[in-house]
């Protein structure tokens, strides 16, 4: 046990912890932003005629550019064009959000298109408004079928969040690189960092798998 108290992980525990907290913040904010933006993009591309092509373009653009390129683009170009984001943290969250929003918009679309036309027509015949149909008829049904894609995307956001360290957001990865350059103990520090990420992602992925299997059994779904 002595070994643990002398290990890099314990000696630098405060830096690791601070980094982990920032990683969690960036991930959660980016992910929630991605869900909101993805839903908005999906709605616009499906139901708002004049915005159909612009929103399709953004979905494709967000999906087809590598996250690292996206991150630098958001960080260096957006502030000059639209005057925002004006901080590294905001830029990191925004880049993660727009990247995943493209994927989630497609997930929403696939889910919504899976609902049979007849149900929507029935709801319309009852006099329900568009948003009400979305809220009461469509979304409750698609939540279960979309759950696996959503969970998978959260893992992608966590993994991509390592990159925000490049624009000096002090996340776990940033702390690891900083500690390595100060103490030069890359073997211990980098291995601990890799292990922390591996444990977090594996644990979540395992939990999601259990949850998905349960949903599939419960609703008799054969595919996610």
């Amino acid at each position, binding site marked *: 046990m002595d070994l643990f108290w002398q290990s890099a992980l314990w000696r630098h525990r405060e830096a690791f912890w601070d980094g982990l907290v920032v990683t969690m913040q960036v991930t959660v904010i980016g992910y929630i932003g991605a869900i909101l933006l993805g839903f908005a993009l999906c709605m616009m591309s499906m139901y708002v005629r004049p915005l159909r092509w612009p929103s399709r373009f953004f979905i494709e653009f967000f999906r*087809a550019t590598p996250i*690292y390129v996206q991150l630098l683009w958001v960080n*260096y*170009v957006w502030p*000059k064009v639209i005057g925002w984001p004006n901080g590294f943290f905001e830029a990191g969250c925004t880049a993660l959000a727009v990247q995943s929003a493209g994927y989630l918009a497609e997930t929403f679309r696939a889910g919504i298109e899976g609902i049979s036309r007849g149900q929507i027509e029935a709801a319309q015949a009852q006099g329900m408004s568009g948003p009400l149909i979305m809220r009461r008829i469509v979304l409750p049904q698609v939540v279960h079928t979309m759950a696996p894609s959503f969970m998978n995307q959260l893992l992608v956001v966590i993994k991509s969040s390592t990159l925000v360290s490049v624009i000096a957001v002090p996340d776990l990865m940033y702390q690891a690189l900083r500690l390595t350059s100060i103490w030069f103990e890359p073997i211990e520090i980098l*291995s601990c960092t890799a292990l922390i*990420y*591996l444990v977090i992602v594996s644990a979540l992925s395992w939990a999601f798998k259990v949850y998905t299997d349960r949903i599939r059994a419960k609703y008799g779904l054969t595919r996610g």
Partner: protein
Amino acid sequence: MIEKFSELAKDLDPAVFWEYRAVLIPGLLYNFYVFFLTVGVAVGLGLFVAILRLSHHGVLRAVGGLYAEVCRNTPEYIALIWIYYVPPLLIGLAIGRNISFSPLLAAVIALGLSSSGYFTETFRAGILAVPKGHVEAARALGMSRLATMQRIVLPQAIRHMLPEAMNQFVSLFKGTTLVSLIAIPDLMYEVSLVTMDTDRALPLYTGAALIYFVLILAMTTLVRKVTDRMRKSPRMTG
């Protein structure tokens, strides 16, 4: 407002991209270079581990499964940095000499390991999709396990897994942008250098994003076309 826009338009001048083509084009080619090397590593390792995962030996199956999980669940960036720094030091300690990996070697190993985890799953699903009867028939005709794999299973499995594999090639290409972080002179690296030189982040980063966008969109469109055609072709039903 209009003033601001005309200023932006002037700043967005794509000429700077053309001006620096002598470094930017080789940068982009470097992405493809890293991509092709990595594909070799990822596909080779992926196939090997997929066969491990399908073996009769419980231990081999477990090792293969663990390998795939570790590769898929580790973020690419930490994998890249880890491979770049740690194994050379460990090997150095073991043989008592200082060694280091070249950035290219580290990048190809790290990205290759990372995506081999996904290829393992793809190969496994492809091999499992081949009807068991085919394997049994080949074995009954006296073909060895290796010959069965080579002549009966893999040709069919590859056709099954091609759509999925092509999508993974595209994400692997996206992953190659990370190599600039360990100073491999790819497109993003050159763009960062030119930006430092000229202080013109706007056209350079926008241009880089657009280049990747067009390239990757072309790739995904091509993949979709090929996949659709394969689905329609009657040979796929077998």
